[in-house]
């Protein structure tokens, strides 16, 4: 039996719906079912995250999954770690595994765009100061390393003012 939706692939999921006391049955292939947000019974997990991860594990081509062994440079976590634990390692993971996560967010929340309060707008001055301070600290480290103590003292004074 072919899928009612694409009429190309084999139907593996049979979805019975009751709308206005009318019973209809849809026969769907795995891909079309996933697009409709229906999971095959084997993949149904308790949480939406669980079902998504299960679907990804089965190799449905929802998104280009990162090659195994691809590692987040900051925390050393892999996408496989995330699949196993359901937890990301650090905030940089959102950049390291951006493509599959974007897909996941779309499926979990129906969107990838944050429309709520924006943190950076709250106090841009402080964020800027923090960035400047980080840069100064790096320069201070270099100055000390190269034994340029005059420069180091100057940077330290500027850091004090900033902080």
């Amino acid at each position: 039996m072919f899928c009612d939706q694409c009429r190309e692939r084999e139907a593996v999921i049979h979805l019975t719906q009751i709308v206005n006391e009318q019973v209809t049955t849809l026969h769907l292939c795995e891909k079309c079912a996933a697009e409709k947000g229906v999971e095959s019974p084997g993949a149904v997990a308790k949480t939406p995250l669980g079902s998504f991860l299960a679907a990804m594990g089965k190799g449905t081509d929802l998104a280009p999954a990162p090659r195994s062994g691809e590692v987040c440079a900051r925390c050393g976590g892999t996408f496989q770690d995330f699949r196993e634990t359901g937890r990301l390692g650090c905030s940089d993971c959102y950049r390291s595994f951006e493509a599959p996560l974007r897909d996941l967010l779309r499926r979990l929340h129906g969107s990838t765009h944050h429309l709520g309060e924006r943190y950076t707008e709250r106090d841009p001055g402080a964020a800027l100061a923090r960035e400047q301070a980080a840069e100064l600290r790096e320069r201070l480290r270099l100055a000390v390393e190269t034994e340029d103590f005059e420069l180091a003292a100057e940077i330290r004074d500027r850091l004090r003012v900033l902080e």
Partner: protein
Amino acid sequence: MIDLSLLTDGGVGWLDASGPASHLVLSTRIRLARNLADHVFQGRTSETEREEILATVEGAARESVLLRRATRFRLDRLDRTDRQLLHERHLVSKELAGLDPDGRVRSGASLLVQDRIGVMLNEEDHLRIQGLHSGFALDAAYAEVDRLDAELGQRLAFAFHPEFGYLTSCPTNVGTGLRASVLIHLPGLVLTKEISKVLQGLAQVGLTHRGLYGEGSEVVGNFFQLSNQTTLGSSERELLDHLGKMVRQVMDYEEQARQVLVRDAPTVIEDKVWRAYGLLRYARSLSFDEAMNLLSGVRLGVGVGLIPDVAMYTLNKLLIYAQPAHLAVAEGLAPDDADLPLRRARFVRKVLESEVGRRG
């Protein structure tokens, strides 16, 4: 033993049934998940790093207005009964208290609490800013939590992504990081067997339900926690408005169901609520679940005007103090002591006797 008297109202001010729609809604809780940009997420933190997170946030809290006088509890330094006590007061999650069957309390796990708001530290996310209000009070609860978020956000660097919003350890919380929950009592819908339809309807509009103790807990005493499922793609305002609208609708359904019960089965319902009252008033042994179910019956009786003279506050108080850890601490027993059901029955009898007076 922890000293809960350090807290204003013992941290259970939300019990006083003073909030809007208190006859149906016990409490409104709002939490915001936040992480510090400079630290890896909780799954990868070391013990030292968790201490740093704690120190950083506590520093910011001391400078804030809303948490300046906060009481601190280090969950990792409390015994299991005390941790359970805080959990039963709805002040900490099961995860933070390390109460899951295979769970252990994480080092650095802490709670800062001042009046109705607080922060769980070293939970699944570095910070879980939370507020708990009496009755149905989404706006008031959010306003307070939002203020605290702003105060802390000025002093701490939160992990934020221009497109995805606030970054969280689990992608189910990303974006606003906001979860708003309303703890509502729905015996009418349960008795008329309409509840599953209502819960299915809520799932279709993006809301989820949990039991009395939130995530992963069973429904006891017909108490349901209704909350938003998604956190990304809508503003905080939209999430709250949507939840609020749906909760009001559920409240209407519940009132209708109660009217149907009183109209179509008056003797059945009258017998049911008075039977519940009678058992609570005179039973010699009560399990926690039985006590919760009977309290639910009495609460319904009070709600539809069949049982006069019992205050919602009395029922709320019983709901909290009849819980295993609360009772165990009050009675000087272990929470799994075989005598607990007897002590529970005695406690309930005593409270009803002194607060309700004699009824024939």
